[in-house]
């Protein structure tokens, strides 16, 4: 009996060791075949693009196998007909838009030409209940009809001069093949959606990577010089940097400081030709509402006082902060959501920026004293949100720098380290009581952005509570005359600017670092959510 137990022991430990070994060896068997020579690898922080059904994602990354209606010029970011629409027109009040599709456009894998039916079909999918796309709500009110095989018409409930934005950088509508849907159903999309882009969807490892192969004779004539492109989701910046240095990745996104280090090591930093995002610190709560909201009394927070808000702005040495966060040459942003590319841009405000917002700690302290800060305030402490958001690794530093400058001016702070979703919960629940970093990416047309971030129109939880702004915002919705709109936007920006309604930071280009031994160049406008696009233009050595 004894020897039996000994045998069992020996047996058990052998089985155990064998199992471990077998598991380990099996994993070698599982190994993927060595990658083809001409695979371009792009490593970025995870974008949450874990579905082939684009409308069920938040729209952070549109599969390069799919196309939208409107394209953008890689150099200037101007709308162009490089995607499915050959041309477009709108009626006088911007409430009806007609797109003419490229007649030669066709889906890959022999799913036939791209027609109006595909657009209507895709549109219906995008406004389904499972849609989570950013900005999709406006689409729900739209009716779409095929005028002919290659012409579609969108009828909008309200005028929208910025409708092209939805079809370009915002990417609210990706065109799927109706033929594939009819043949294979939604499962066909889930397995491998056919698109009309210059790449074919090859497969994904959830949370890990997506791979595309290039199309040989693409209808646009685009001919990338590589066979495959693979996007890898890698959350650690240093790991991405290591991938770049080890030659495992052709292009990676990196935080600013690491970009410098990479450049020093001989890699090349490529910036988008246009600003890809605007950043700011936003005050939350309806702090400009003269009658305290029944939800909460924003005015118990120090930033309800305009003098305190000005002091906060004056306390910041933006040149130094922005250089530390984004490097030299980044543009300071006079008003968040205002952008020279879009209507409503005011030169006058931009010119006044230094005078009104320039670094002046003495003035800040005077203002604080005037306001009776901190003694007159119930809550003199300013809670600053420290958070990390994919694509914005600098947000944590931003909060730290702001805190440091506030401290110098005598503004009390409290750091709130929380994840992005937690902040969102508070904002959506109207219980936010902090100052949080925020980004506008892709840079929305000003009329859209200002509504979202400052008025009660698009997202009431971000409303600053100012009656004047809300009135202007409400009027703007129905106004179609471009000049009147310009004037109204100007008024809104002036109002925001003069009442120091936020802590504007910068307009930042998207940038990637490429391995200079492998990549010659790559031009992209930085107009999408991720800032990346035009992968077919990646120029290899």
């Amino acid at each position, binding site marked *: 009996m004894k020897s039996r137990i000994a045998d069992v022991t020996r047996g*058990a430990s052998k089985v155990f060791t064998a199992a471990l070994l077998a*598991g380990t060896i099996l994993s070698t068997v*599982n190994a993927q075949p060595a990658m083809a020579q001409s695979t371009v690898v792009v490593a970025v922080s995870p974008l949450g693009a874990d579905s082939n059904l684009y409308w069920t994602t938040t729209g952070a990354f549109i599969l390069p196998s799919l196309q939208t209606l409107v394209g953008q010029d890689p150099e200037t970011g101007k709308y162009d007909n490089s995607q499915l629409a050959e041309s477009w027109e709108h009626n006088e009040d911007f409430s009806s838009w007609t797109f003419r599709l490229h007649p030669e456009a066709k889906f890959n894998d022999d799913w036939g030409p791209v027609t109006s039916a595909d657009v209507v079909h895709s549109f219906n999918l995008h406004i389904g209940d499972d849609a989570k796309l950013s900005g999709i*709500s406006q689409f729900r009110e739209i009716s779409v009809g095929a005028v002919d095989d290659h012409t579609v018409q969108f009828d909008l409930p309200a005028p929208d001069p910025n409708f092209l934005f939805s079809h370009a950088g915002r990417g609210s509508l990706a065109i799927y093949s109706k033929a594939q849907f009819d043949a294979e159903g939604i499962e066909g999309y889930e397995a491998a959606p056919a698109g009309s882009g210059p790449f074919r969807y090859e497969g994904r490892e959830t949370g890990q990577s997506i791979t595309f192969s290039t199309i040989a004779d693409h209808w646009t004539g685009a001919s990338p010089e590589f066979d495959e492109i693979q996007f890898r989701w*890698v*959350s650690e910046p240093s*790991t991405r940097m290591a*991938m770049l240095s080890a030659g*495992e990745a052709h292009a990676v996104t990196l935080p600013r400081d690491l970009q410098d280090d990479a450049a020093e090591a001989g890699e090349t930093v490529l910036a988008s030709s246009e600003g890809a995002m605007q950043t700011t610190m936003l005050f939350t709560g309806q702090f400009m509402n003269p009658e305290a909201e029944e939800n909460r009394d924003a005015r118990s927070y120090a930033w309800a006082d305009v003098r305190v808000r000005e002091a906060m702005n004056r306390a910041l040495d933006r040149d130094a902060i922005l250089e530390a966060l984004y490097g030299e040459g980044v543009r300071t942003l006079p008003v968040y959501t205002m952008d020279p590319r879009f209507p409503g841009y005011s030169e006058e405000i931009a010119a006044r920026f230094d005078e009104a917002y320039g670094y002046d700690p003495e003035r800040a302290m005077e203002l604080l004293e005037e306001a009776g800060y901190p003694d007159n305030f119930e809550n003199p402490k300013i809670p600053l949100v420290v958070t990390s958001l994919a694509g914005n690794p600098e947000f944590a530093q931003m909060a730290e720098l702001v805190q440091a400058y506030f401290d110098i001016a005598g503004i009390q702070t409290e750091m709130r380290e929380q994840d992005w979703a937690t902040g*969102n919960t508070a904002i959506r629940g109207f219980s936010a009581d902090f100052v949080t970093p925020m980004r506008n990416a892709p840079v929305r047309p000003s009329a859209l952005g200002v509504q979202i971030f400052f008025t009660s129109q698009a997202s009431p939880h971000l409303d600053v509570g100012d009656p004047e702004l809300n009135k202007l915002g409400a009027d703007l919705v129905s106004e179609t005359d471009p000049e009147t709109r310009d004037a109204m936007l100007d008024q809104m920006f002036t109002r925001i600017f003069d009442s120091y309604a936020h802590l504007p930071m910068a307009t930042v280009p998207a940038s990637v670092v490429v391995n200079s031994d492998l990549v010659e160049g790559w031009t992209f406008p930085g107009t999408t959510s991720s800032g990346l696009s035009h992968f077919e233009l990646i120029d290899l050595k």
Partner: protein
Amino acid sequence: MLRYLLQRGASSLFALLIITVIVFSLSQLSGSPVDALLPDDATQEQIDIFIREWGLDQPLWKQYLTFLGNAVQGDFGVSLKWPGESAMGFVLDRMPATLRLGGLAILITLIIALPLGIAAAVYKGSAIDRIAQGFALLGQSMPNFWLGIVLIWIFSVWLGWLPTSGIGSFAHLILPAIAIAWFQISALARLTRSAMLEVLDAEYIKLARVKGVSEWAVVFKHALRNAAVVPLTYFGILAASILTGSVVIESVYSYPGMGWVAIEAIRGRDFPVVQAVIIAYAVIYMLSNLLVDLLYVIVNPRIKHG
């Protein structure tokens, strides 16, 4: 012995039940998935649809019972973050990757720590002992993510021997497994050393020598058999800490295992997946403890009569 194991099994099940309560309440506490899964500018309408669809408007106890009822059948619902994936299915998909990584880490740990601990005990006070102890102390005082990154730079970037990150070949497993094993090696080597020292001092070791048993057999037959109980008991904790360690290391190496799922799911407020992954962790832990109990009985026959 069977009764003993059954008893252990039953109490594990009870513990699992409690864990479901904890997991459920924690995931409730951690906020609404709405904010993690819908875009920043989602409308109220979008939010309402979402809430209704996922039953987030039901009373909590009802949500829990529904959850438990389904969980028993292995159904944790559908992932909110990874559309079209069943929560447990998604976790189970990732499990082999983590088990492979954990298995290799355990293997490395055992292969290095046991001989090291034994050698340190047998040659107590010698250079080997001092090296082993130094190694043990070092291993226990280095944050594992730090080690992980350093390993990437040394072996992937400078030496170019191994891939930096990701999953695929066996080579991809080596660095993360070492990074996970490092701390465990030191802990296990330390334990083995002290357990062996204790045993080597015992009279029966002297008796074995007196009988003319070779030193090799003294160490590996007489001493190890008795000392093994200690590292074995530790095995349960080892398994748990390797799983825990994998949460951080999988993130460093962008290795899509359960740890990665756990972090992504919690950040994304993907309740079903969070619940599934924690339960899966707990089950692995408890199974490995049951295995330990079993091995324990085999290695140490005394317990059978105890």
